[in-house]
């Protein structure tokens, strides 16, 4: 998809770095390739620098030693992110990827939690997903039911929540991404990503920022052979999350 032009091209999207964050430069690259301007935000700062949206990237913040995301949620900047994400009127779009998703659950912006993968190993593979909800701030450039392939790489990727919460997520259409064909890590109901009720906060375990450039994403590894009857991945399926938020900002 071509980067959006016009007003959204001036959008400034913050990418937060915590100590131990790994995919911040990748997330910034994805923002840039989508046509917006990435703004580096430091966890210890007290200002969001007037960004239009925020990405909490993947990694092992504070080593994930206590629980993934448990220490980062107390960062000074997270207070600002939480407040802005829940602001009435025009809440700030926030995307949490992998460790960022884990931070969002620890910060209670999203329900549930992540525990170790069922096989107890770190797992890196190209993962097929079904887009369940194509109306959130971060998924409006997809169509519901569409299948995409982006990398999955984590140690604590098994999404869990109680039955009531799961039913509620399903009923409210807040399951945004679901693992397709096989559940890689034992996540409840094969959930790969969810949103808050307003749809401005989205968290997912797989990494869209690693599927934004042909040749440097899922099609470079050949791991697509695991998908049986799936054509070769385009390698750039993740870019639409970033163009989606630009579209959201344009419309808003």
């Amino acid at each position, binding site marked *: 998809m071509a980067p959006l032009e016009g007003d959204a091209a001036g959008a400034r999207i913050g990418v937060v770095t915590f100590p131990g964050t790994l995919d911040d430069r990748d997330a910034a690259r994805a923002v840039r390739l989508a046509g917006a301007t990435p703004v580096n935000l430091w966890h210890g700062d007290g200002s969001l620098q007037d960004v239009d949206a925020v990405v909490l990237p993947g990694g092992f913040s504070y080593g994930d030693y206590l629980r993934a995301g448990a220490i980062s949620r107390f960062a000074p900047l997270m207070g600002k992110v939480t407040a802005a994400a829940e602001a009435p009127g025009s809440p700030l779009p926030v995307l949490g990827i992998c460790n960022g998703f884990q931070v969002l659950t620890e910060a209670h912006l999203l329900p549930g939690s992540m525990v170790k993968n069922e096989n107890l190993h770190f797992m890196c593979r190209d993962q097929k997903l079904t887009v369940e909800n194509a109306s959130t701030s971060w998924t409006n450039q997809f169509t519901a039911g569409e299948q995409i392939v982006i990398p999955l790489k984590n140690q604590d990727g098994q999404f869990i929540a109680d039955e009531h919460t799961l039913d509620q997520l399903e009923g409210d259409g807040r399951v945004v991404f679901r693992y397709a064909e096989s559940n890689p890590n034992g996540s409840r109901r094969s959930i790969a990503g969810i949103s808050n009720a307003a749809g401005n906060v989205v968290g997912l375990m797989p990494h869209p920022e690693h599927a934004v450039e042909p*040749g440097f994403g899922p099609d470079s590894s050949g791991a697509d052979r695991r998908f049986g009857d799936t054509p070769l991945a385009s390698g750039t399926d993740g870019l639409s999350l970033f163009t989606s938020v630009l579209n959201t900002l344009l419309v808003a």
Partner: protein
Amino acid sequence: MTEEFNLDTVEHASRTPDSELPWADLGLRENEFEDIQTILGRRPTAAELAMYSVMWSEHCSYKSSKVHLRQFGDKVSEAMKQHLLVGIGENAGVVDIGEGWSVTFKIESHNSPSMVEPFQGAATGVGGIVRDIISMGARPVAVMDALRFGGIDHPDSQRLVHGIVSGIGSYGNSLGLPNVGGEVVFDPAYQGNPLVNALAVGVMRHEDIRLANASGVGNKVVLFGARTGGDGIGGASVLASESFDSSKPSKRPAVQVGDPFAEKVLIECCLELFAASVVEGIQDLGAAGISCATSELASNGDGGMHVELTNVLLRDPTLTPGEILMSESQERMMAVVTPENAAAFEAIMDKWNVEYSWLGEVTDTERLVIEWDGEEIVNVDPKTVAHEGPVYDRPYHRPDWLDELQKSSFRASKQHQERPQSGPELAAAVLELMSSPNMCSKDWVTNQYDRYVQGNTALAMPDDAGVIRVDEESGLGIAVSTDANGRYSYLNPYDGARLALAEAYRNVATSGAKPMAVTDCLNFGSPEDPEIMWQFAESIRGLADACQELGVPVTGGNVSLYNQTSGVAIPPTPVVGVLGLFDDVGRRTPSGWRDDGQALYLLGTTADELDGSEWANLRGHLGGQPPAVDLSIEKQLGEILINASRDGMIDAAHDVSEGGLAATLSEMALRFGVGARVGIDELCERDGIDAFTALFSETQGRAVVSVARTEEVRFTDMCTARGFAHLRIGVVDNPPGSPRGAERLGRSPVVDQASASERAETQPEPALDVQGHFTLPLASLREAHEGTLPAYFG
């Protein structure tokens, strides 16, 4: 603090020349201890003895290997040095890759720590090599690991494989370094002595290169990162003699625990220091810790340094001065900073929450002086510690048993008589080969490593080389591959080392990159055994000769000796890493074919070379001579592969090595799940071999490429013009609409189950069809190939 020790000051040492010192327990020989006394003109203090003993160890001083390693420096032409910005001797070599970019890379062993505690041993191995890379001023961009285990079915392999793989994954993944290649080998010959060789690559702008030297009198010396604990000192007895109450020796850790989070913060913090130009010189702390860092920084710089050791931040306050000097605690760095930059340095440390302590300053005294609360406990010429250690030219001789071994060829064996010949036998043999521990898919291992992080990975395992983009604008990038074959080296260490280089070189060229430089990790048994010393000497001679012939210099590496248990040594295992250059990584060649109708060419000729092969190994035969090495052919083959990649003539390439053509074809087909029709009869006729030999011989200098119909004439013309053997052996079989349809599809809209299953019914299953011999459906080939490691390790 001082009253806790019997502080052995320099003054005290001069007054008490006859004090007994436990030099033997610290691993020093009598002649070495005498040398130290001569150098100092008195007996060493306990702290000095600690420093000399660790710095003069085999591990730090290369005392047994130095006389041979010199060949890497001697057998180098000016042309080979043309792109070398930093050569052997620094933490890692640096290669100019153009456009103002430079690359540093190095491989290092962490064998014995990984045997003791596999998870932490392997993890800290990654940590150590990455700090070598940072200390050159570079951002680490990739890692890979060459691993060798004992028999796959040995009970201890469970502990080692799980521990080592998760240790590497845990540390490397937490650092955000893509793991893009390496090796996993199983062989009972490594039982009790697993090999964990970790390679790291870093990139930097030319102006950012940093060296380990302490220049500028008055500049300050600072230690930063983790606190110093009693790691890696094993409770050596000199330390007990130092301690006040010998009835209560302080407990010292048996293994070191890595803290990847601390290292990740250290990486970012160092890169910020480099960007702000606030450090003059920098050195990582690895083996021999502060002893090594202070003596090397001082002797590489203005020659003198003054340090107050009580300033070192301790994790364990009971450490004695000698222990502090010897400690190998991880995740520490030492830097030299001008007084003007001290505040800027501290601000960066504070931002990243990294602890630091100012230890002292650079002097022009030519002496390394270390004080403990103002009392002098070390006063040495740092060069005598760091560089002028003992050198041994150990005796060596060719083993008597080698003649008989080399005479016992596979061709003359019972196993050769029983070789598979009919179609069904050959098909079964291919399945057996591809499911064997060494040839099976290593996905179970590599899927535990992050290959995507940093977003610059253009190729990773199972491709021939890991390919990383360096410059996002131009596509400038690098390829790296490691290789070794212990069986080849056991049969002939000289040729074995040349073969290791030849394969790593070929792998890099197969990906499309121009080989530029070499790093090596030389794993051997005890140098005190003359036969092993001969294997070692021969390996170095072979590698140095081959480097010269191929025009690629060794830029650094590591020697690991004493890999033996109960007198049984590992086979000689010189692991060779080759770095290659891409003008544009967009041109890289993957190892699997995809597009229907493309022609498959075998480059090179095939001889009857099964000695030391994977097939012979499967049949329990080890003897004869390894495949012949002709480096001029390797060079030509490399040029063809690189040109074909750059000019877009080939869409896939994979070298022929362990497992022969059978393995190459299988791996190429499985890479993207696309079949092919292959004919080998013409090949058998041309080269005078049978089908078995065509499929399983390990003749070097070969590769299979996939060529688009439109490029075929241009490609064959190029091979013909260069006089390089090439033979069309088949076509890619991937009809449109098959499960692996060649059409490039983007996001797939809502799946139409009906049409998908209909399509599956009408299309034949993809297969590797070796016409006239056998047809292997890829599904069964994949099941055989991918089932092995999960079956053993879950």
